[in-house]
């Protein structure tokens, strides 16, 4: 299985602090992966690098069958290439309705001129409704997304990610602040999504990671400490030291 995303030997430092240190990572085209690690391990920075927000000092990041380098692309280009990102705090456009949020995310031409003349067709409408149903927001379509609950916003954001039809999804702490039932729903969504695309979940919560039941990568001080099933990595002496030794 060839890798969809290939990160090799990437390093980045801020003011002398090495946030990412010679990190290598790869994920296949239809795979669910959890990334765990203590605070400051470089999880967020890793996502920043993949999505183009932060430029690494060295290393290579390639994507897709043709191994396109992501380093020279802008955030928007990377997103169009098929990488979606969900932030830790739900970030939806609160001033706009759920329908508008989803419509904006729908896979379509992104150039200003094309968007200006874009008018909603029946296919688009059906797609928006299907997505809303998928994330449990079918009844909320005309509501302003600012009025939604925290969990609903998380789902809306996941719905927007689905609408983008990405090949790789980066999800930052999707379960934070959710009720148990909401967590259950989120887990299902992620597992379902990973059947057709690559999903990387960054998470603190071991319990949630266990539910995902997937390969786990442990980051520490900007580098991969261990990789494997959750049981495998939790038995790793170094991992135990990092987590317990540091509290």
């Amino acid at each position, binding site marked *: 299985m060839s890798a969809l995303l290939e990160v090799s030997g990437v390093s980045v430092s*801020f*003011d002398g*602090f090495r*946030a990412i240190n010679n990190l290598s990572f790869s994920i296949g085209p239809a795979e669910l992966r959890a990334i765990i690690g203590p605070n400051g391990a470089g999880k967020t*920075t890793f996502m*920043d690098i993949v999505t183009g*927000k*932060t430029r690494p000092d060295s290393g290579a990041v390639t994507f897709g069958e043709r191994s396109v380098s992501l380093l020279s692309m802008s955030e928007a280009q990377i997103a169009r290439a098929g990488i979606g990102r969900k932030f830790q705090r739900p970030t939806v456009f609160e001033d706009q309705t759920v329908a508008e949020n989803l419509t904006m995310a729908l896979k379509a031409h992104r150039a200003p001129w094309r968007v200006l003349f874009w008018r909603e067709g029946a296919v688009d409408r059906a797609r928006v409704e299907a997505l809303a149903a998928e994330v449990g927001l079918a009844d909320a379509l005309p509501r302003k997304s600012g009025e939604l609950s925290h969990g609903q916003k998380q789902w809306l954001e996941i719905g927007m990610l689905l609408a983008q039809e990405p090949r790789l999804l980066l999800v930052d702490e999707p379960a934070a602040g959710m009720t148990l039932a909401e967590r259950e729903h989120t887990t299902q969504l992620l597992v379902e999504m990973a059947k057709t695309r690559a999903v990387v979940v960054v998470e603190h919560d071991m319990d949630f990671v266990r539910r995902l039941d997937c390969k786990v990568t442990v980051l520490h001080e900007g580098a991969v400490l261990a990789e494997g099933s959750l049981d495998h990595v939790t038995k790793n002496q170094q991992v135990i030291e990092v987590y317990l030794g540091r509290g």
Partner: protein
Amino acid sequence: MRQLFLSLVTALLVALPGLALAQSAVDILDANRALVEKPTRAKIAPVISELAASGDPVAATVLAAWAEKGLGLRKADGTFFLIEKTADGWALRDLTGAEAGVAASSDIVELRPNAGVRGLIATALVQFTLSDPDPAKRAAALVSIARDPEAAHLEPLRASLATEVDPALKAQKDRLERLLTLRFDTDSAARVAAIEGFGSDLGLDLRAALNPLLATSRVAYAGDLPGGANVARVLVPGADLSEAEAYDLLVAAGMAPARLTVEEARAALLANVVDGAVGGVPVAELGTQAARDRAYTALEAAGAVPAAATDAEVAAAVAAHGFAEVYAEPDAQVTAAAKAALDGIALKVGAMQTADLALDAVSLASIYFLAAIGLAITFGVMRVINMAHGEFIMMGAYTGYVVQLFITNYTLSILVALPLAFAVTFAAGVAMERLVIRHLYKRPLETLLATFGISIALQQIAKNIFGTQARPLTAPAWLDGALTFNDVVSISYIRIAIFVLAMLFLLFFLWLMKRTRLGLEVRAVTQNPTMAASMGINPDRINMLTFGLGSGIAGIAGVAIGLFAKVTSELGSDYIVQSFMTVVVGGVGNIWGTLAGAFLIGTLQKGIEWLNPSNTLAAQTYMILFIILFIQFRPRGIIALKGRAAGD
């Protein structure tokens, strides 16, 4: 060579008194009575020279009186008197100054020399003033000669050189003698020696003396270069001068017929309208240049109008002649020496000008720094944009003006105004923070607009109170004048004072932020307000004090700026954009960045002004364009915050 020359002069001077004593002034006058009575410039010259050379102390009195219509001739016996108009005639004194009674108006002929003769007399008198016993008069004479040098001054000056006892005046005379020598001496070797004698001198007077030597004029000539002309360079039409200019030279020299101007052609055509046509071309068709040319050519052929040069003729005439730039000064040796000397001077002056420009740039940078430092605090530290910052500067300046209305001692008034301006603007800043800005934290664009509303209101209130005309804010006398290094490099004391003030503020700011409790708390609130609050720091109080501080410094800057700029209600808005640029270019949140920004902008503005001195508006335009481009390459300014904190 020069030594030889000087010894000759000295010999002459030694010989003179012997000759001069041969005749007294009275004798000379008597001998030339007719000529003195009706002088002409040409004929009287030897007489005046003789008088001047006589060595008779009376001669100076006589010459001075003559020039000022104070010399008279008694009709009865032809005796000369010094005369003075009285109510009913003349009061007479003899030439030595002794009283000699009175005379009726009709008995005396008042001598009235014309301007030319008076000029001769004045020149002759120079010798006497240059040797006057009073050093002040001698110094004055030197100044007047330096201001308006003439060839005739050279001899008297040389003559007085030997007898000069005052060493300072002697040095001045020596310098002036050489300046006159290089311009007026007849011996080219002496002139070259005089030029070279100045060595590395940069004086303006020297440049003023040398420049006319290199004055050129353009000449046209047929065939070879005219002999005897001191050619600066040969001009090639098309490269060094346009064909039109070349032809104009030919016309001016009478070597070619004038070209026909559009107006002349028009007039000629109008004068020859016959039956609604000119030269066979109907008037109605004369709306193009080609048609007019045809008509004129027809008239030319008929002999009705003079022939005018056509373009081809012009080209031929230009090709047939040579053109050159010729020095007015005929002596090639002298011009070569002058050119070499001026080139040397230009090089040194260029270096000096660079130094002067650097001083100018530093002082402008200090002003920008002063204007921007308050902003660096409110914008840079608090991230609050205050468009009324300029109006705080204006309030400071007006505070200074009001203080001077009550305290007339300028030194004292400035000392009072500085803290008072701080107090006034500090209070205004705190009030603004409490009433407006506090409610708009986290809404920077609205802060910008609200503070702009305040700025509009404050400006108009100032206009209503103080009127639209500029108010004076006078600097103490000890700040007048300038520190002058030489003719090129100088800097006014006010600007030095502003530089010092700017440096003081820099130190004050560093001390405040790095060494005081307040500074610590400010930094804490800036970096993490929530954390700071949880540690017992009251962010409200800190924000209020910080804002007051920034505003107060703007007030002090206002007093400083008011000292050299006009105090008007628009004073602040003149500086606000530059101040923001300074902060943004330097890098927000870093005082060294503000300093660097001020220096960059100051240097840049002075540099552009130097490239295009006539146009300060253009300089500002280009500076702003540069800044817009600069931000392309360093969006976070010269000194940027790095790392995650800077990420967006």
